[in-house]
Every structure is written in structure tokens, then in C-alpha cells.
């Protein structure tokens, strides 16, 4: 049990980085997972060169969803929007560094989905999901 949640996950959970809301912001999106009640909002401030000057998250949820959001925020600071679009499921799982089962996958990927929906301006994550994984 001790190894399951590595110290860095628990650290990000207990001391989330870049947690809060951002004013002003250029992008804001929020989603919640009704099954577990996890809720995440991501705010971005993107400058004219397409660089993310600042990114923050808010909300609540399990250790996996909160830690993965916190880790994602660290990654986003100063990144170009184009590069942010390329962040993949695999990148998130690498951040976490522990095996994630199918149910927890939704927790792990919630922040990534909120990010992508925010960038692409989709209201319905499910449409995105639908398109993404036909196989």
C-alpha cells in the first residue's frame, strides 16, 4: 500500500501547485465526473505569441485527479498552446508513474480533458472522447 501512491503523488495532493483561479484569463473550462464527484477547472492566460503565461487549476477530488492536475500545471507554465495540444494521455500517466486501472483512468485524465476542452472550446468532453477513441 505504501508504494501504491508514490510520495510525489501524495506531495502534489497535499501541496498542489498553481492551485487557484486566474484573473485575467484567456481560457477557462470546468468539468465534473458525476461518478466520483471530482471537479476540476483550469484557467489559462495565453499571450499573443500563443504562449501560456500562466495556468492554474481549482476544484476537488481524489488524490489521483488532484495530483495529476497539479503536475499538469507545472508542465504548462510557459508552454506554447500548440505544444499543450500535443500533451497526451501517455504523458499524464508518465507524470503519475503508477499503474492506473480503467476506473481511475477517468480521475487521472480529467485535468487533461478539461485542458483540451478549454483549448478547443468544446462544451461536451464526451464529443471529444467519442472522436478520440473509436478503437
Amino acid at each position, binding site marked *: 500500500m505504501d508504494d501504491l501512491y508514490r510520495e510525489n503523488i501524495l506531495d502534489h495532493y497535499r501541496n498542489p501547485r498553481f492551485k487557484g483561479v486566474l484573473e485575467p484569463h484567456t481560457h477557462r473550462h470546468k468539468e465534473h465526473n458525476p461518478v*466520483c464527484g471530482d471537479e476540476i477547472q483550469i484557467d489559462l492566460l495565453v499571450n499573443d505569441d500563443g504562449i501560456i503565461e500562466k495556468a492554474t487549476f481549482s476544484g476537488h477530488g481524489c*488524490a489521483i485527479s488532484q495530483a495529476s492536475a497539479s503536475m499538469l500545471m507545472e508542465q504548462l507554465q510557459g508552454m506554447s498552446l500548440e505544444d499543450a495540444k500535443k500533451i497526451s494521455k501517455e504523458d499524464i500517466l508518465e507524470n503519475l508513474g503508477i499503474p492506473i486501472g480503467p476506473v481511475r483512468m477517468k480521475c487521472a485524465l480529467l485535468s487533461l480533458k478539461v485542458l483540451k476542452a478549454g483549448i478547443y472550446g468544446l462544451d461536451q468532453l464526451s464529443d471529444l472522447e467519442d472522436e478520440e477513441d473509436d478503437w
Partner: protein
Amino acid sequence: MFDVDAIRRDFPVLQQQTNGKPLVYLDSGASSQKPQSVIDAVDACYREYYANVHRGIYDLSEKASDEFEKARKKIARFINAKSWRELIFTRNATESLNLVAYSWGLENLHRGDTILVTDMEHHANLVPWQQVARRTGAKLAIAPTTADGLLDMAAYKSMLNPSVKLVAFTLMSNVLGTITPAREMIALAHEIGAITVVDGAQSVPHLPTDVQALDCDFLAFSGHKMLAPSGIGALWGRKSLLAEMPPFLTGGDMIKEVHFDHAEWNQLPWKFEAGTPAIVQAIGMGAAVDYLNALGMDAVRQHEIELTGYALDRLSRVEGVKILGTMNPELRGGAVAFTFGDIHPHDLASMLNAENIAIRAGHHCAQPLHDKLGISASARASFYIYNKPEEVDRLAESLDKARQVFSL
């Protein structure tokens, strides 16, 4: 004598170990494990006498038909039905409830009528009624539970007015564990002329069931929660009601005659069983009932009262645990849902899995109840015939360990 160790030897899955830790399976409320006798019954059918049922004039099919219908009779007797013709095979309790909703509900409910359910219903006994209400214009009313998780009988009584045409409620909550006073609720509903639909998904596997004594009109339950294969469930219905209802699914086997422009229906129960049924699964459910009968359902209930009593006591002494539902094991079944400080139930389930302990985390298909309780999810340990106090201890010890990891 209820010999749990002997019972455990009948369940191949329970012989497993992972990293030297034996499996502690505490998710029977979601689905139970299967004894060797059920696995063997399934295997024997496929190897020795598999064929489609009812119409085949050859030995395999006659044997398969015979075993299939024998299973129906066993299951009908298990719930003390007046006739095996009242026992309809479905995939699961959900389909059973939908059958009533579509076939009785759409036909008999109208604008101005009320459907009454309780606030602790599983989605399977809530969403179909929402849909029927939407289609017929009937109203859906929700009877509340009290603060200690029992049905609020005063409120229930006050909501029974002549507009109520159907009352649907669970006999045992899969979250609170609550056993509802079904006989009294049914008698009161009948007084105002309402029909009663009992969700027995949690109760039939765990309690002696007698539909004649209950005097309910419909009873829905699942095989997979009572040692049977997946893919099989049942609806029991009062014959006089079933006889008047239009069929639900239509096609082969449920017909008497078919012409291009019309069709006539088969006798009960086949009128409600369209197409090739879940033959082997029904036979397996018959074997599951044999197994439970050999234990005796009174003994099964007694075992669970004892084990649940032990669990309620042991878990409530773990710092941070808050148990949902009544603390009186006589008034509840062995589904024990709880919260654990700030630790999210998903995290808790993952941590316990690392100890080879299987519990459930989430809203357990009872989201409105969780909303009412002001929580988005809970953890749930649920017990069955093969569980024992030592497993409760392992759960409790692991909770302590989890608290340390999370420095709760």
C-alpha cells in the same frame, strides 16, 4: 452448522493469493462469486447436452428444455411463488423492472396518476419510472428515509393518496443496507388500490423470500448476485396481472401464432420471453438455488446478521470511519457503506486493492441518495456467505494503514 471455511472451499476464486495475501472479496453486493457446483452445471450443459430449447424433437434439446424449465420451477419455489408460470427469466433485475415499466406502466398509467418510489432506490428502480412518468404524464413522488437510514413510514403513509397507482421500492438498500417494512408498505399500498413492485436484487440473495406472504405484485431480482452466472435474472409477477399485460419483447417463442398482419401470444411465462433465452445461465441459476437451499436461507440471514453486527462494531471503532445507515444489524443487510475522513473513496479502494481487499467506491448506482446525504461517493464493503470476521479485521487494519499513508 454454518461452516464458512467449508463454504469457502467451494469457491475457486477465493483460493487466490496476490503477493502472499489472500483475496478478501467484499463486493458481493455488486456481484457474488460462484461455487464449483454452479460452474460445473454450466460446464456440463455445454459439454453434454447443449441445444436450443422448447422446439427441438431430439434428446439434447429435450434434456436442455427439461433442465431449463426445472430451473424455473426451483427458482419459483425459492421465492414461494404460487405457480412457476409467474417466473419470467430476464438478463438482470434491471430488465425485470423495465419489463414492468414498459408493459404494465405504459399501459396503465396516465396523466394525474402518481408513481411512488423511495429516496434510497438504485437507479434501476428510479430511472425506468422517470421514463414512464415522462411518457405517460404521471407524476413521480419520492418517499424519504429518516436520519438513521430507515424508511420514514409516517411520510410514506402521508404520501399514499388515491392518485398513487404504483409503488416501487427496494426490500434492501444496496447503500444503507436498510430492510424496508415491505409487508406493511404493500398492505398500505393495496388499501389505496396501488400495485407494488419490489426490488429484490439485494434481498433475495440474502433473506428468505416469500412472495405470497409479502403479497407484492412484482418482484425483480438478479441471478449474478446470488451465486448464479452473469446474464440471468428474473421477474416474478402475480399471474392475474401478467395475464392482462401486453408482451414486452416480441419475436420467436413468445408467440402462439403469427400471421403477416397480426400475432397471438404464448401462455405464461413464455409470453414474456422472446427469442432464445439465456439457457445455460438459467440452468446455472437453478444450481445456485440448490446451493443456497442446502445452506438454508434462514442460516444465510443469521450468518449475515452476525457478520454485519461484527463489522458495524469493528469499523465504527476505526478513527475517521462514518457508517451510513442504521447500526442495528437486525434491520439491515450486509452492505456497509461508509466514508473515511477526507480520503476519497476512490483512493481508499485503490489502497485496499493493494492489500488484495476488494471493496466498491462510488455512488453505487444511488446518486440521488448520495446527493441527499451531501456526499458524492462512499466506500462500501458488502458481505455474503463466504465472508468471515477475520476479513473484517483485515479491512479495519488496512484502513488504519491508509490513514497513516494519507496522514489523515
